């Protein structure tokens, strides 16, 4: 008897919880972003997601990824229901071409006018229908002035035998190939097989000086002086140099990759209205400024760029003046055969 009673109790409790779930759906928004890519309230900074929840009563479910390809693989693998993702340029182009993104309803994003004209009409989204720029930036060469002299000006420094075993390299093929392509004067978005082969040969030649292929370990290794040279993003250099002041940064003369990471709404999103509110919220002056301070990447938001209180106001690395502007190229979505070729060449570089 006691057992039956107990069972009935549990059953009824279950029904109550189920019923409450269905009658009053809590508003949720699923956001999928790069790791360490939002101001999260650490050290008293502005907590973007918490503030959004407070303002709109929508719960933000937040997940992170480390690179575009991992994000793409996870979305393609299915079983996830994110509303917002923040991919880079070439990946946005790919996702548009594969019908993975929803057109954004800009009428509810009044803050869109904060985005600098410079970052509109980009090749990956020529009519500005699918994406709202979040951060922009460039790749450059970070080096430790204590060990590296004379100051490098070329990507060739990453092939310099003097720094054998002390050089880092991108662990993802697209960025690694871009460096070799810069040196060889090849377009980053080439589809010619010979171009990719030549760049792969250049990357194989680098193996004699024993580079380490790293992702986020670049922070530890450069800050501690374990490694002397690394290609990485300008914004990240600013956070590294605040730990180790011996570090310096240069945009190599051969040219560098320029990228835009932009917020997009995924096809099939069940919370489109909340997603639009969130994107608008990201563009607000307070949010954008907090993010720019926290992430250290260049902001496309005029309210940040023109704010004299901003730590990196007119910073010459993030916002180089016209005469100091390096040569840049943006990645575009490669056709599948070129992607396959690049990936298999990368495997052969790594297996040597």
């Amino acid at each position: 008897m006691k057992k039956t009673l107990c069972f009935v109790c549990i059953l009824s409790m279950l029904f109550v919880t189920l019923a409450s779930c269905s009658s009053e759906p809590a508003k949720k928004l699923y956001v999928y972003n790069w790791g360490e890519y939002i101001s999260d309230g650490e050290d008293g900074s502005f907590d973007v997601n918490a503030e959004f929840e407070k303002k709109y009563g929508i719960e933000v479910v937040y997940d992170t990824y480390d690179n575009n390809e991992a994000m793409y693989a996870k979305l393609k693998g299915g079983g996830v229901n994110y509303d917002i993702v923040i991919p880079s340029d070439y990946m946005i182009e790919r996702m548009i071409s594969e019908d993975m993104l929803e057109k954004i309803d800009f009428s509810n994003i009044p803050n869109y006018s904060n985005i600098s004209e410079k970052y509109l009409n980009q090749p990956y989204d020529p009519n500005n229908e699918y994406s709202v720029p979040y951060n922009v930036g460039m790749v450059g060469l970070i080096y430790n002035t204590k060990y590296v002299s004379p100051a490098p000006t070329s990507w060739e420094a990453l092939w310099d035998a003097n720094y054998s075993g002390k050089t880092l390299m991108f662990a993802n093929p697209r960025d690694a190939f871009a460096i070799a392509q810069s040196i060889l004067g090849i377009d980053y978005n080439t589809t010619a097989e010979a171009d990719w082969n030549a760049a792969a040969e250049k990357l194989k030649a680098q193996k004699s000086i024993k580079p380490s292929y790293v992702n986020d370990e670049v922070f530890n290794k450069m800050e501690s002086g374990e490694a002397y040279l690394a290609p990485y993003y300008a914004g990240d250099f600013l956070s590294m140099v605040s730990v180790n002041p011996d570090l310096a940064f240069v945009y190599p003369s051969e040219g560098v990759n320029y990228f835009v990471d932009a917020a997009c709404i995924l096809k099939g999103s069940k919370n489109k209205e909340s997603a639009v509110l969130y994107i608008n919220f990201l563009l607000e002056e307070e949010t954008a400024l907090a993010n720019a301070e926290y992430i250290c990447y260049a902001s496309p938001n005029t309210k940040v760029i023109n704010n004299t209180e901003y730590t990196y106001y007119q910073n010459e690395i993030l916002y180089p003046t016209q005469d100091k502007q390096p040569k840049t190229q943006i990645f575009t979505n490669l056709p599948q055969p070129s992607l396959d070729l690049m990936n298999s060449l990368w495997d052969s570089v790594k297996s040597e």
Partner: protein
Amino acid sequence: MQQRSSLKARLIASPYVAWSALFIVAPMFFVVYYAFTDAAGAFTLANIKALSNYTEIFVRSITFGLIATVICLLIAYPFAYILSQSGANVQRTMILLIMLPMWMNFLIRTYSWMALLQDTGLINAILGKLGIGPFHMINTGGAVILGMIYNFLPYMILPIYSILTKLDRSLIEAAEDLGSNRFNVIKKVVIPLSMPGVVSGITMVFVPSVSTFYISQKLGGGAFDLIGDTIERQFQQAYNYNLGASLSLVLMVLILVCMAVMHRFTDNDEGGGMVI
């Protein structure tokens, strides 16, 4: 009566059967399916043909795995033997100490080795204070093998130890009574009787060593790619499930072959009749 109990047995087993079907057989099926199809789902042998580009990586993975397994065995066997001969308290403490690191995640432990082995790491800092070194240890093949040994050594010690503690002491005494010296007791009685533990230890070290993917990235600086790294990259980076699956399939077959060869060896050694 007989039927009722077998029905009961089947009922009890059914969750396990369902589990195995869902999480072992079905994934295997997918691996085979992906290995022999292209991105569009049509049958192809291209993924299998592409494997010839990866011979070097396979050879490296197996070599590293073998070296790690042999070193683990050389360390673990004497250790397990001495331990099994020690007092109960010593045994309990030592086993606890062996298990202790396993309570921490293996990724974190591997990451810590990076901090130890670096040129500016702890070991070189201490050696530097003593006026020795620095020694370049990180980002070498040796560091990768060290990582394997460190991570998988307990899996060699534990099975050998557990079989040695269950060893019938009267057999050893009998050998001694019959005039066998200490060396011969170990060689002719202890080692043959502990072979099942050795074989399961070898399996439990060799298989994860050959297929590991994290250790080589962190301790090898990404310059000593193993087959596990390459497979991971196909799924995470290249979004090429088909090539990833065919690499996995070959890895599975290779491991099975290695295991079969090894079992054959131990069978011959012992004159057959080994249970594992």
